[in-house]
């Protein structure tokens, strides 16, 4: 494999893992922009989506219904989480709320360990096709699906925010909660919506990525962390930033592993991230008002 193919491979690899991070970053950004909270339990929703789909298939459910049910379950769990843990604490500080999400993630992870034990599971790829070759580099078709999901999700979000009444209401609330209340928009409903919706995105992400990454009870932890990094890297103020941040993080990791040191790839990614934060404190696509 020549050096050009190698670099191209790093790019494709980065795109694969990057689109995974991007999806999770998207879920985080949506919640953050609507409620101001970072839902650090988001990784667990990825797990719920993936592992529920696995279990449903194991008892004989065909693919599509299994995936839909899994996603619905994740959405319901998100709603439940919001009603029982976020809503009662809505007047508390943001730090407290974030810490509550950490507590929820611990509980969910314990439940996942209980139900699914420590075994890794897998799902079949959506299409049974051979890896695609581009000039000596390789990408599996499933990765393209993940990327497509990320792009579609962003597209749908834009359509939602720009063309639907509810979407515009959400945007209004994001800009000014008091004014929104005055015109009759209910922030509590929005909070519920945010958590449900982000749970759904995360679960979908879980189902899409499992054919590549396999699923374990603790997959959510690392993915949630990287999603968080990606979200802030991209600038938490908009969905496109989440995608950009995710893909960028994936590519940095891949190039770091390939060209520098695979043992230090996480360290290098962190250094780059810190440098970005110091030079562009609002993240790559963020707006200055959220920055330093």
């Amino acid at each position, binding site marked *: 494999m020549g050096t050009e193919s190698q670099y191209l491979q790093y790019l*494709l690899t980065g795109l*694969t893992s990057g689109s995974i991070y991007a999806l999770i970053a998207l879920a985080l950004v949506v919640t953050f922009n609507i409620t101001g909270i970072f839902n650090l339990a988001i990784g667990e929703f990825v797990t719920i989506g993936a592992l529920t789909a696995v279990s449903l298939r194991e008892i004989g459910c065909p693919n599509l219904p299994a995936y839909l049910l899994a996603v619905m379950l994740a959405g319901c769990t998100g709603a439940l989480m919001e009603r029982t843990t976020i809503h009662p604490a809505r007047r508390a500080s943001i730090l407290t709320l974030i810490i509550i999400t950490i507590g929820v993630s611990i509980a969910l992870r314990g439940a996942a360990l209980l139900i699914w034990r*420590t075994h890794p599971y897998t799902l079949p790829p959506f299409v049974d096709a051979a890896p695609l070759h581009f000039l000596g580099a390789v990408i599996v078709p499933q990765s393209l699906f993940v990327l497509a999901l990320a792009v579609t999700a962003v597209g749908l979000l834009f359509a939602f925010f720009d063309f639907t009444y509810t979407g515009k209401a959400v945007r209004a609330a994001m800009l000014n909660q008091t004014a929104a209340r005055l015109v009759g928009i209910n922030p509590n409903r929005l909070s519920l919506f945010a958590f449900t919706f982000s749970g759904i995105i995360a679960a979908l992400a879980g189902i899409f990525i499992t054919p590549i990454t*396999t699923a374990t009870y*603790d997959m959510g932890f690392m993915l949630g962390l990287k999603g968080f990094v990606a979200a802030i890297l991209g600038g938490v103020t908009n969905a496109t930033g989440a995608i950009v941040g995710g893909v960028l993080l994936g590519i940095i990791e891949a190039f770091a592993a390939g060209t520098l040191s695979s043992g230090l790839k*996480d360290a290098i990614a962190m250094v780059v991230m810190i440098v970005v934060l110091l030079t562009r404190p609002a993240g790559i696509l963020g707006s200055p008002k959220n920055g330093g």
Partner: protein
Amino acid sequence: MFRRSFLLVLAALLAVAVFAAGCGKSKPAAGPEPAGETAKETYKIGAVVDISGPAASLGEPERDTLEMLEEELNAKGGIDGHPIDLIILDNKSNETEAVLAAKRLIEQEKVLAVIGCSQSSTSLAMVDTVTKSKVPMISMAASAKIVTPVEERQWVFKTAQSDIIVANKIARYLVKKGLKNVAFLSVNNAFGDSGLQNFEAAASENGINIILKEKFEATDTDMTAQLAKVKASKAQATVVWAIPPAASIVTKNFRDLGINMPLVHTHGIGNKKFLELAGDAANGVVAPLGKLLVAEQLPDSDPQKQVLLDYINDYQQKYNARPSTFGGHAHDAFNLVVRAIEQAGPDRAKIRDALEQITGYAGISGVFNLSPEDHNGLGEDSMVLVEIKEGKWQLLEL
């Protein structure tokens, strides 16, 4: 306010104290007391297992095996009529917890011996505690550092094969196939690190050149970047030192990239999850494994065959699944302790001495020949080379 805050803290601490003291008032223990107690006194054995946390895939089958064996032994009346009480604690794959768990077992429960832990790092963390308290410890982890230098490890034993055995077996296989230039990929944790060090030693001894060394994290989801370097290199074979799911992902990536060279794994893949996750990509993989996975294919003359088949049968009946080699390490640790207690009675120091005398014990991980110089007792015959063909383990050579 100041005083009130302080009182609250004190109350919390006292609560901890009361509870911890309270849980010490459990059943009477058979500690190192002189002979002459009633014959039906319960013998207590402790176990510290990495049941949750990153090493849970090792600890779970170990915990399941230990519980199964405790049941079986008590059904047979225990050790010479003494029922046994096996107390299993979870160290959450965390060293500080391992130390605390060991202390709890030793001080509160007053166990005769401690089985543990699943990982080398958590096992090593307990060494100081068991040595100071003079309690025999049998680890289920692989690192040779657990039992050497033996002068500093008087109270510590282990049942898993040392990584150097695995490394040597791989090295010799590669030499036999004429594959002198290899790429080495390992997971970036203690397991992979030990593999790297041991393989480097085995390679230099056997004339193999490691021309490329790459690492990946246990939680990574894609290793194509590292494998791209392998593909571009002049390596003739690739050795991967990891456990599933990372090991399976590497294997899938390897095949996706179309890398055309032999792929060798280690005992880390010794469970059927690896096959499930890697699917067709696993075919052609060669690895040195404990005999458990190919028990049925062993010649009848093999001293371990019957023990292996019994274990598989019992485990299958109780848990409806095939046991893994990790469970096998727990099986051996339990049986070694039981044998030693049978020999020496409820005396920690005598149990330690008895452990050193055990020879010719055919266990799951191998045939154990312990001695004062060797607290592991396993040799190269404890592993066999296995190839994966059509999604099944095939014995390649003994």
